[in-house]
């Protein structure tokens, strides 16, 4: 039995259908991330799970019980909002107690629960403050504390970190990860930051325009994306997409790229079946980190393609350097070790790790 089951779920606002046939299930204790670009319906889906939006059709079950028409208070869930939604006129302690108070939990038990969570999250010194007197990170922590005191069946998070600045976001991400290890509750976590999804989730559901694109483990989603959208969405900088065609190289199926510098023929990505006759258009997807400087090639590595391209922009970030190369009309971003980075105007000589590249159908956009 799974802790959350969503079956053929649909949602329309008036004539606009914002969620289409969503199927999803979370096993007990699992951490599921819901990612997708803005407006794809993540928050709507979460609100439906929470009971804050009505269901147009389909089923939502929590621990096997159909909850389509159950009020939020009776679903036994806890939720952390992007805005934190801390009650501004209550102290941190009152914020945490409010849910228990509303449910008539005895004072003594309230105190105990608050003490436990406050020590878990190390927010004891903040208990008497009002939310306005807290920093962003502290607020985030309190919002989590409020969700934790209740010991619910399901945790829902709606972009809990997106209001924090970059440094704090990274820290809190790690913290959430540790916390989930500790409490091991089923969690649905909405984010549009794919790194958060990758690092936190046991499975990721990628959504786009109300449709669930892929629902799988992070590594699978990253390495074998179901389609161009998922491939482009996951990973930063984005995967490079190149128009190519099927070809044959040394008798084996291969892909050919037409570049101003002439045609490059590369071996087929590992695991791709050569379904198509040679000469068919395909889209080749290569992630920035799957380029290697030619002279660093390690002996014995197979399935390597070689590209020579002019350098357009060099962006050193310190730990690594991103280099934008021109490949005809398209730009390719490649990741370099800072020491190896070329200069603008030079020509980069790169090996492509075709074992990790992907091929897509240009029409259906699905991976081949």
């Amino acid at each position, binding site marked *: 039995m799974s802790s959350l089951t969503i079956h053929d779920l649909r949602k329309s606002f008036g004539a606009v259908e914002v969620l289409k046939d969503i199927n999803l299930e979370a096993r007990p204790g699992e951490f599921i991330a819901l990612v997708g670009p803005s407006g794809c319906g993540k928050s709507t889906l979460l609100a439906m799970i*929470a009971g*804050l939006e009505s269901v147009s059709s389909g089923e939502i079950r929590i621990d096997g019980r159909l909850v389509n028409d159950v009020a*939020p208070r009776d679903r036994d869930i806890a939720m952390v909002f992007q805005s934190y*939604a801390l009650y501004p*006129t209550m102290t941190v302690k009152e914020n945490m107690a*409010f849910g228990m108070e509303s449910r008539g939990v005895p004072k003594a038990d309230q105190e105990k629960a608050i003490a436990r969570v406050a020590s878990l999250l190390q927010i004891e010194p903040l208990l008497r403050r009002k939310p*306005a007197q807290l920093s962003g990170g502290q607020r985030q922590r309190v919002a989590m504390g*409020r969700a934790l005191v*209740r010991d619910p069946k399901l945790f829902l998070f709606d972009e809990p970190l997106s209001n924090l600045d970059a440094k704090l976001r990274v820290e809190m991400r790690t913290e959430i990860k540790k916390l989930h290890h500790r409490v091991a509750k089923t969690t649905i976590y909405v984010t549009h930051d794919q790194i958060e999804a990758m690092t936190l989730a046991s499975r990721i559901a990628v959504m786009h325009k109300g449709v669930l694109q892929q629902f799988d483990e992070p590594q699978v989603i990253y390495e074998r994306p179901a389609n161009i959208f998922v491939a482009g969405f996951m990973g930063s900088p984005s995967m490079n997409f190149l128009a190519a065609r099927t070809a044959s190289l040394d008798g084996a199926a291969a892909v050919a790229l037409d570049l101003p510098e002439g045609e490059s023929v590369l071996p087929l990505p590992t695991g791709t079946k050569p379904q198509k006759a040679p000469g068919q258009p395909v889209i080749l997807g290569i992630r920035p980190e799957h380029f290697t400087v030619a002279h660093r090639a390690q002996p014995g590595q197979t399935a390597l393609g070689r590209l020579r391209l002019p350098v357009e922009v060099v962006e050193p970030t310190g730990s690594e350097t991103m280099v934008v190369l021109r490949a005809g009309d398209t730009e390719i971003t490649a990741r370099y070790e800072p020491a190896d980075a070329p200069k603008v105007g030079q020509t980069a000589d790169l090996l492509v790790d075709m074992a990790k590249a992907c091929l897509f159908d240009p029409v259906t956009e699905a991976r081949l």
Partner: protein
Amino acid sequence: MTLALDHRSDSSLAWRNRLAAWTPRLVLLPTILASVLYVLIFTLWTLWISVSNSTLLPNLTYGGFKHYVALWNHQRWTIAYTNLFVFGSLYVLGSLILGTFLAILIDQRVRGESVWRAIYLYPLAISFVVTGTSWRWILDPSTGIEAMLRNMGFENASFDWIVNRDMAIYCVVIAGMWQASGFAMALILAGLRSVDQDLIKAAQIDGASMARIYRRVVLPSIRPIFVAVLVILLQFAIKTFDLVYALTGGGPGLSTNVPAIYVYDLMFQRGQIGQGAAAAIMILLALAAVLVPYALYMAWRQRREAANG
């Protein structure tokens, strides 16, 4: 463009800058003068008249505090000043509570929201000269609710507050609330709409009922709006004049007299300008009793906000 700028000498630029720096102050000058006249001079003039020998006409010779003494020896003034506090607090709190209640009702995703809003808000647009009479008819036992109830067969029905000297002031409160609660409703409703909807969602998930959500979460978070409504209503309350005139004429007896009426009667009908001015100064003191704490509260809030960044 670059060239054009370089041709200008720094000194002419400096002169222009100085002029530009003074423009706001120059433009504000007429308002400043008007306010000095209206706020400062008028108040000082009234203050002086209140300690002068004025009776029939203004007389600028100093006469000491006799008008204040006479004022506080006057039973009608004591009634009026007491009424100011009774009426003021009931009217303000009543309008606030009623307005809040209406705002919450309208906030429940009702159909035709703008129609309901207009119905509750329209009394603010109509002067009491217009509706006082009508309220008078409604509250008067021989023509209004009581008569209607009796005609309907409730022989013992009794609603005679307006002719009862102990209760008449509450009729003034009711009519005042009728006029002002829509205004409170409008402000509070807008306040409710500005409350982060996530707070309500969070509270729902926390298991609170809607009543509890309003009481504990939503209403407390729009406290600044309540304070603003409070101050505007208090200011109305203190200036109340035509409401009472149209509704009870200050009666039965003296029971619904308020200071504004007293000032008008003494200054103009009775020809006791000095005592009227003294009464006006007492109104200003009552105002100060409200405004000074409000100003302190605002200053405190600002400082606290500054402290919290």
